[in-house]
């Protein structure tokens, strides 16, 4: 990999509760490329949240090294304020954390705590609101609580963006949103990545979501990095994933079922568009259907 923004080497984390020690992460070595959008998948308890909490210093490794954007998280003297400013984190149901009287004040909360000048705060808030599709002249002075759920979630996202992070970590970003809210949220994420070069890490149970958004996947199982690769290669291993109690996206499920029935479907076929083109051709030229 040419320019990793996050590097972990032999990262292990053990939770200590009284005399009981529980290994949450075991010997994780990975690299996340700058500017990429990666997904972290695994069942509840597989270590996903524990892993990303090392990326912004909420947790320190029990052993091993974590380097984030040049900062050594495992070192004792690390500048936490700087680390947390570079790594923005959006937790589950982030709209529950909105609290200010206006959208502007809520988004400005983080930049103000960074002790930026009034003018700089204002510029950042305006830009962040624009980025998430809430034009400031319509939304800045409204109460966040009178917005729709999808909009509230985007206010929370703007609050993180206003800190100008180089890495954005999203924990189950679209649960509870309907199809429309989801599609909008994805569109804004793509824009943030393209326009601002932010590296994005998504934790999600929704396999169709990670297949659509990410270009690299890390699969965690029992606290270990069990598999990594492009969504295409990871989701081609349906049997292995099911053994870890993970599902593959519905479309890949269908393609796998067709392969089992003897249809010749190349591994490159991954999107709805690919599948449509191929199946249409198979229909028109039936001699291409069998392996």
């Amino acid at each position, binding site marked *: 990999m040419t320019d990793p923004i996050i590097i972990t080497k032999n990262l292990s984390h053990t939770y200590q509760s009284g005399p009981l020690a529980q290994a949450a992460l075991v010997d994780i070595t990975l690299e996340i490329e700058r500017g990429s959008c990666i997904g972290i998948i695994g069942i509840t308890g597989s270590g996903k949240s524990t892993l990303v909490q090392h990326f912004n210093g909420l947790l320190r490794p029990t052993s091993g090294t974590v380097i984030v954007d040049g900062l050594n998280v495992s070192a004792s003297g690390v500048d936490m304020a700087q680390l947390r400013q570079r790594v923005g984190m959006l937790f589950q149901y982030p709209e529950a954390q909105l609290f200010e009287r206006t959208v502007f004040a809520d988004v400005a909360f983080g930049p103000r705590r960074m002790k930026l000048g009034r003018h700089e705060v204002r510029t950042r808030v305006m830009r962040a609101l624009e980025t998430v599709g809430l034009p400031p002249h319509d939304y800045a002075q409204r109460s966040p609580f009178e917005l729709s759920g999808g909009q509230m979630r985007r206010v929370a996202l703007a609050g993180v963006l206003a800190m100008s992070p180089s890495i954005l970590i999203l924990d189950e970003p679209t649960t509870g949103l309907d*199809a429309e809210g989801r599609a909008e949220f994805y569109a804004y994420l793509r824009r943030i990545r393209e326009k601002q070069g932010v590296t994005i890490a998504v934790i999600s149970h929704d396999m169709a979501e990670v297949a659509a958004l990410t270009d690299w996947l890390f699969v965690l199982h029992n606290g270990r990095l069990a598999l990594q690769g492009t969504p295409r290669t990871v989701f081609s291993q349906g049997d292995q994933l099911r053994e870890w109690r993970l599902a593959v996206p519905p479309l890949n499920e*269908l393609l796998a079922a067709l392969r089992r029935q003897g249809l010749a479907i190349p591994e490159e076929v991954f999107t709805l568009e690919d599948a*449509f083109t191929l199946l249409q051709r198979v229909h028109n030229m039936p001699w291409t259907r069998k392996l």
Partner: protein
Amino acid sequence: MSSSPFIDIQHVTYTYPDQQSRREAVREGRTVIHEQDASLPALRDVSLQVGYGEYVVILGHNGSGKSTLARHCNALLTPGSGRVLVGGMDTADQANRRAMRDMVGMIFQNPDNQIIATVVEDDVAWALTVRGLPAALIRERVANAMTAVGIADMGKLPPHQLSGGQRQRLAIAGVLALRPQCIIADEATAQLDPLSRMEIVALLHQLWREYGLTITQVTHLLEEAALAERVVVMEQGQVVMDGTPASVFADLERLRRLKLAIPEPIELADRLRGAGIPISQEALTTEAIARELAH
């Protein structure tokens, strides 16, 4: 067999006492609703009949009124106007409440809200104990209910050691132990991972077949609706579509306008059909679509 419906919803309109409590009700379900939906009554002149032993899915996006409707079916909410009869009893009549809730059991998004006891089997027994049934009968019913949902070997465990899917099974066992005629599952799979979700749906279908229960399943997922006998689609507090899954899914454009996500296999089948490739309207599951495409 009675010819009158089991659940009979007649011209029901319902407005939450104030918008604050509506928002709270919605937050509790951890869903997220649209502004325009929040300004209308939650139900607007809804009439719907569900027969004995039917498996009905109520489908709709967040804030469409589907959960509000479900909560009228066992008197958790009572109509502002109109009326609801369950097994012939009026839900507005206080005297019927206990009988009605024994008859219609409800499970919710978050099973933890209905888990009370510190050990699984005590939790299943809870409602029976409260009703003062004899100990031997309670033991028998608890054992049967735990077996029916597949947690027979977990009786002595504390509920927090169960996975999300297992805790939802526990909630279903608690309802089953009361020997209901009907189970209402209100977004009962929304907080589960995909595999656990399909297992809970499979369990509801199994209980429907084996015990002849009436099942009303509230969801926003088309893949869950595909397996029902009948699908009722709600939008802005009204029933806007009602029919077999095949007939409802025949108009994907309309479902998309109703802010429902179309699963990719169903969308692919629809586009292939449009391109002249024969796939029947009844092929709605991944397996069924694959079978037809391979032949």
